[in-house]
């Protein structure tokens, strides 16, 4: 277990969200069901760092520029 950013998440492992970037983007993330303290599943990590996470049945694609601003606990 160590801290890092979401773009470093390993495929197939759970990550716990520590903090989201401030502003409009945070609101959009919370609405999609991603908020601080949540544990989500990293479904796929594309070359370059685009991350696809899964929370329950929902799959969400997050671009590298956003993923590297989301602080997480990597497992």
């Amino acid at each position: 277990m160590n801290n890092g950013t979401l773009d470093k998440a390993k495929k197939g492992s759970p990550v716990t969200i520590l903090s989201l970037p401030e502003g409009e983007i945070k609101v959009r993330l919370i609405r999609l069901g991603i908020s601080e303290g949540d544990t989500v599943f990293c479904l796929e990590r594309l070359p370059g760092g685009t991350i696809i996470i899964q929370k329950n049945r929902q799959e969400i694609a997050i671009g590298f520029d956003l993923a590297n601003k989301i602080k997480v606990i990597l497992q």
Partner: protein
Amino acid sequence: MRSDKIFNADNDNQLTFEQAQAIIDKKKSLVLVGNPNVGKSLFFNFLSGMYVDVSNFPGTTVSISKANYKKYDLYDTPGIYGVSSFNEEEEVARDIILSGDIIINVVNSLHLERDLFLTLQLIDMGKKIAVLLNFSDEVTKRKIKINDEKLSEMLGVPVIKTSAADEIGFDRLDEAIENAKIGNQKLELQFLIQQVMDKGVSQPESLLILEGDEIVAKRNNVPCGTPDEREKIYITRRNLVNEIVDTVEHEDSKKGEFFNLLGKLSLNPKTGIPVLAIILTIVYFFIGDVISQRVVDYTENTLGINTFEYYTKSFVSEYTATSIDVEILDDEDNVINQKSFSFPEGIKALPLSGKEFKDFSSQPGATSTFHFENKIVRLFFGEFGVVTMTITYLLFLLMPLVIGFYFVMALLEDSGYLPRLATMLDRSLNKIGLNGKAVIPIMLGFGCVTMANITTRILGSNREKTIVTAILQFAIPCSAQLSVIAVLLTGAGIGPMAIYATVIFTVLIGLSTLLDKLIPGESSPLLIDLPVMQVPKLKNVLKKTIFRTSGFMKEAGVWFFVGALAVGFLEITGILYVFQDVLAPLTTKWLLLPKEAANAFVMGMVRRDFGAAGLFSMTLSTMQITVAIITITLFVPCIASFVVMLKERGWKEGLTIWFGTWFTAFLVGGIVAQIII
């Protein structure tokens, strides 16, 4: 008098004018609200009997549909994840929700955690709502159990299970609408809302103000909530949603069912690129071969030129001075017979030779070229006539292509592939200042740049819209142009083909990298939810295709006429020929092409394929052909896309891009010419 006749003739079941008016005034509004792709539009179609866009990609229901349903005005709104003012769509949806009497909240039962967030916000607004748990067919398939009664109890509003796809639960819609209620609200939040309401603001607006909606705050002249307050409300709401979902939902067999191999394969470039290649090959055969060769060949030549234009022009010739050349071609396009006719006072004045012309020109393989003496007649019915050419172009050439492209896009969209494609390409597009979503307008550009210009609306920021609009005008050849270029290039061989592709691709990358450096600000990062992959429903795909095509025709159609009129005007006044002369030195000395090639450029301003087609009649070396088509591809977009671009992006930006294409086309074309010719 009039009202007597209409309203009092049959007193028992007719209303007085005043009574009728009162009912119309009191008509309540019923608003469909929900996240993107939850089935709102399908419900709207069902209730109203009308068709609206059914869409799987966020951001495509831009305009609002309104219809009558029983005693209600029914509205469809763009998909939103929450009520606020982050973008134009949200603003539109927000205002309709604020003015709505009853909200029908459509929810995707597979994504309760996501969708109920909006539901709770609507409840906090104090709106009367009814919740439709849609996608219940999928829920059953995946052995998920949702306790709708418990949910209804927790929310305090009616909840029914539905499937818009299988028409389940439609019989209970009326009941749900009639029973729509204001739901259970949290006390702490109510207290905060009350404080704003005390300043004379309505409850729904008070909530939005607390949540930091500056526009609504300004409208009511009260201070706006802080981001911290909004966050507190959001997190409380998020926790409540999670709690509700834990209580009402049970899943028997986790995973397995929703594992979708193809969906996964199309995400990762390693497997996704082969998947994309297969899809593009199929698309190429469908659009490149079936539509643009077979279908357009029939519609443009048989229906357009030989039927519609022939009869229109023959009819006009009855009354006006004209001379007509008729050629009879055999199957290999060799001229086997020809005749010229002259009617100085119209065909009507010379019935005998008129008959001869008609007989001769209605043989199989006949093509008639009409030369009208009168300039105004020429403007409307001549070779480039506003009426004749534009109608043939729009209806018989462009429309089949646009239909083909929208059809393919709808298939890709409804299958859930498009958001995955956007995800796969995201990182590459980041390098030129875009995010994955930009692939959609760029792909459409290969169909019709005008259509793609309209689609740039789905992009997240102005910066991205500018970059994509520029790419479209500079470096993307539309299908009309592409089909002519393809013929010229296949004639020229592999070398020229490689040079062409390399040069255009280099310009595309160079241009977007430059714009990414020059335009201040940042592009929006990719953040999209990936809908489940499924086999698209043909009925929806067809409906969507028809709907979008007619939307395109309405929005852009008129500009093709305006463009033709403008160029026709330049032609009669002779300004067109001045242009050609002005360009001549550039054409011969710098591009190393014959002087007449300038005509091709000028005509390319009206229709991009005209530009390319003009080259057929010239004797050019293969390298000259290569230079000419590079220049024409980079040169200005057609007039219709020019106007649509001005409308979308404004005068300043639109004109900068337009003149930029002049500059780049001649600069790059010239450099290539100096090297290879």
